[in-house]
């Protein structure tokens, strides 16, 4: 059910109010209608009945007149029968003349025989002697009563009635009058009620006697079955008083309001009837009026119900909607119900609850906000510290690092500007090393006349080895540097925080921040600035160390350069005289200066040999020093490893042959062409092979060269004394031979292996030895086949 409760409530109110108002209206209308119906009906019946009674009275009058006239004719008493007869005849004729309703009058004697008959209808007869002694008319009248016969019709069209009265002196004779009832019909047909109302008469047997429509009378309609007739006849003994009105079917159908009155002497009944439609026409108008009024009332009551229900429901809806909004989280919403009743109280209650919720939420939000701010601050500090650490670690430009640190310190401490000083121990002055958002004039003043130890905030902080705050620069007791205070006063700075930069109690400088608001700095700010000060100490320390290292490096570099130059010069200087010695020796032994005796030639041979040894020593020393100085640059080019090996073999052939050693060269046939420094590689292989020959007395020296996986593998094996594992480590170092005596014995500088290994390594290769004492030695190296440009070490 998504229908809002307000809608349902509204419906309920409307229905209840409608039932209430509508019901009352309906009931009153119905009662009004009922009573007015009853009254109308009673009034109509009364009118009808009055008419009926009047008609009945006139008919009764008519009948009684006739009876009286007829009786009157019989009162004359004559002794003489003839005279009586004549007088009677005269009376009868006069009667016929005076009373048109009497159509025939006859006289019956005591025996019931007709003595005289005067008639408008037929011939008069005197003494006809017709015997009527058995007829009811004679018998009734003789008994002293007036006889009224049932209605009968002559010529099938005219209603007649026989009236018989006693006559004669003793009342034993009878006068009989035949009376036409057309007069009654006239009476009846004259009765009019409204447009369609009419009257009719029925006799004691219930047969229609008179009716405006004569044809119905002529049909001799028996109306005894009609309910109103039956009811009237049944009531007769009771006296037939008032209240005789009812609704019944008319003679020819339709509904009629009917009333009647009795005609006493005849036992007849006069009915007056009016069609219901006409009779109740005023009532119908009244009904229509009532219905219209009812409808109007109902419409008004609907309107009123709706308005009332709306008035009742509106505040409830407002409450409901407001509660829903508050419930949905809109705590700023307030319910506006101004009904001054319980609903308003309820609305106020909701409002109070919402307000309390809002307050508690606001409190919660503030807490969350505060915590978030703290976290953000902490994060920012961490970030700043990370920044600073990175700066300290990545750049050795002190000014950049210190500028970064000051900037972070100013940002995080929410101050206006800041500086970092480096302390100069020699002068006791603080020199500006980094600043952030500091006005140029302040910088100039600080540069021109540096702050001294014990002066100003930073001087005091450093002297005290603790942070110093100046809550108000304008206070002379707090801040004593007049030249700065004047500027700060103009620029609007009010408070200062100075933190010393200390490296294990050694003064490095100070970190200072300024702000425009006076007052003390929060402990967190002081902590933060101290942390950044520690970073500054590191940065300054690093920078100083770096400066020292740089100086040392420069000195070393220059020393190394001098050494290399010196060696190059030395080498040249040594080589030049040596060149002369060797040259002259060669010329002498080749007899350029004349025949040389055998003994001298022998000595000259030793001179030549010693000279060459000296030359190789000089060359080796030069090589080593160049390698050490990183000045040995490979001259890369195409070469054939096979040729290198064979060049070396050629160079040492004589040497091997001299020692009667077998020299085997085993170069793989499919060696690829290499790229490298051919001369240096040749030198390396030559050194290895020379060594092998030098240290081998008996047996052979084998040189092998193969290639696989983009590398050459060159090994030089000998059948020499072998090298102990301990010595294997040392032999590649400079000036090391297995035993120092061997240097003297075998000659050589002890630099050959070292140079060979460095050459191989410069090519990106590796050199090692496999050996055991008494087993000979194998020196091997691998080497990339293709060596591209690589930096000298």
């Amino acid at each position, binding site marked *: 059910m998504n229908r809002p409760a307000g809608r349902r409530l509204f419906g309920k109110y409307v229905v209840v109010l409608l039932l209430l108002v509508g019901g009352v209206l309906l009931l009153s209308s119905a009662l009004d209608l009922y009573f007015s119906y009853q009254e109308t009906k009673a009034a109509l019946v009364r009118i009808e009945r009055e008419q009926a009674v009047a008609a009945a009275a006139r008919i009764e009058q008519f009948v009684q007149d006739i009876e009286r006239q007829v009786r009157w004719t019989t009162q004359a008493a004559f002794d003489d029968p003839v005279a009586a007869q004549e007088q009677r005849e005269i009376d009868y004729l006069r009667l016929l003349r005076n009373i048109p309703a009497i159509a025939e009058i006859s006289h019956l004697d005591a025996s019931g025989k007709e003595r005289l008959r005067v008639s408008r209808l037929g011939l008069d007869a005197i003494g006809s002697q017709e015997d009527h002694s058995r007829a009811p008319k004679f018998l009734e009248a003789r008994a002293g009563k007036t006889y009224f016969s049932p209605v009968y019709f002559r010529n099938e069209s005219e209603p007649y009635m026989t009236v018989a009265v006693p006559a004669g002196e003793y009342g034993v004779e009878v006068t009989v009058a035949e009376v036409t009832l057309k007069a009654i019909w006239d009476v009846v047909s004259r009765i009019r009620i409204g447009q369609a109302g009419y009257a009719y008469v029925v006799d004691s047997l219930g047969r229609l006697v008179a009716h405006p429509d004569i044809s119905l009378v002529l049909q001799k309609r028996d109306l005894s079955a009609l309910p109103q007739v039956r009811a009237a006849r049944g009531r007769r003994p009771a006296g037939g008083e008032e209240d005789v009105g009812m609704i019944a079917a008319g003679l020819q159908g339709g509904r009629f309001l009917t009333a009647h009155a009795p005609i006493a002497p005849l036992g007849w009944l006069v009915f007056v009837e009016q069609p219901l439609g006409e009779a109740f026409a005023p009532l119908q108008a009244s009904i229509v009026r009532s219905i219209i009024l009812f409808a109007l009332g109902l419409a008004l009551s609907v309107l009123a119900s709706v308005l009332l229900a709306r008035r009742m429901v509106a505040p409830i809806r407002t409450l409901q909607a407001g509660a829903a909004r508050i419930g949905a989280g809109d705590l700023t919403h307030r319910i506006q119900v101004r009904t001054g009743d319980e609903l308003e109280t309820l609305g106020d209650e909701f409002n109070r609850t919402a307000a309390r919720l809002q307050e508690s939420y606001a409190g919660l939000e503030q807490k969350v906000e505060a915590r978030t701010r703290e976290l953000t601050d902490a994060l920012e500090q961490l970030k700043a510290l990370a920044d600073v650490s990175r700066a300290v670690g990545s750049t050795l430009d002190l000014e950049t690092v210190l500028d970064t640190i000051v900037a972070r310190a100013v940002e995080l401490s929410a101050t206006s500007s800041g500086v970092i000083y480096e302390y100069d121990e020699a002068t006791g002055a603080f020199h500006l090393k980094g600043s952030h958002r500091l006005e140029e004039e302040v910088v100039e003043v600080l540069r021109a006349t540096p702050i001294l130890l014990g002066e100003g905030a930073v001087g005091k902080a450093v002297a005290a080895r603790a942070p110093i705050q100046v809550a108000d620069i304008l206070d002379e007791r707090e801040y004593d540097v007049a030249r700065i205070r004047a500027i700060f006063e103009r620029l609007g700075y009010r408070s200062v925080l100075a933190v010393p930069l200390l490296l294990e109690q050694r003064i490095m400088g100070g970190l200072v921040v300024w702000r425009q608001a006076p007052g003390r700095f929060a402990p967190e700010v002081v902590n933060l600035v101290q942390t950044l000060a520690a970073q500054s100490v590191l940065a300054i320390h690093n920078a100083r160390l770096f400066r020292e290292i740089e100086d040392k490096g420069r000195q070393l570099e220059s020393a190394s350069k001098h050494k290399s130059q010196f060696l*190059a010069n030395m*080498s*040249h200087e040594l*080589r*030049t*005289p*040596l*060149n*002369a010695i*060797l*040259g*002259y020796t*060669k*010329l002498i032994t*080749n007899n*350029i*200066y004349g025949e040389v005796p055998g003994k001298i030639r022998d000595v000259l041979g030793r001179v030549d040999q010693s000279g060459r040894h000296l*030359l190789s020593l000089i*060359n080796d020393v*030069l090589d080593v020093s160049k390698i050490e100085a990183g000045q*040995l*640059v490979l*001259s890369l080019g195409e070469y054939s490893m096979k040729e290198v090996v064979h060049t070396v073999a050629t160079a040492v052939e004589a040497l091997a042959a001299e020692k009667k050693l077998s020299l085997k060269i085993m170069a793989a046939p499919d060696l690829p062409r290499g790229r490298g420094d051919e001369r240096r590689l040749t030198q390396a292989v030559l050194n290895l092979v020379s060594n092998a020959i030098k240290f081998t007395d008996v047996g052979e020296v084998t040189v092998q060269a193969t290639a696989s996986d983009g590398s050459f593998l060159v090994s030089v094996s000998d059948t020499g004394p072998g090298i102990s594992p301990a010595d294997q480590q040392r032999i590649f170092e400079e000036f090391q031979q297995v035993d120092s005596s061997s240097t003297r014995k075998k000659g050589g500088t002890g630099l050959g292996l070292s140079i060979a290994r460095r050459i191989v390594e410069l090519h990106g290769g590796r050199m090692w030895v496999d050996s055991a004492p008494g087993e000979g030695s194998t020196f091997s190296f691998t080497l990339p086949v293709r060596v591209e440009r690589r930096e000298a070490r």
Partner: protein
Amino acid sequence: MSRRVLVIEDQEDNRRIVRDLLTSADYEVIEAETGEAGVAMAETARPGLILMDIQLPGIDGYEATRRIKANPALHHIPIIVITSYALSGDDVKAFDAGCDDYLAKPYDPFALLAKIRERLP
């Protein structure tokens, strides 16, 4: 073709060794101690071959070689450069300067003689 060899060398001993060697092999030897003097002597004496030391006072052997080779009149004279072992890449520099052959110190005098005989029989 003259069998005159110009030796440009600042070291007296080296000059003498070459002089003694070449004289014994029937070459005429003329000498210069500096690069400038050597270039001038090449123009005036028109030697059949020049031995050029690299380390010279004044202009060095490379520059002297370039100047001689730049002179169309002297362009054809073969120049053998004597390089110093101490400085690597000397051979390349020597050829770049325009020399015809080179020999590294210390050299065997008879190897030098063989190279000269090749160029100046």
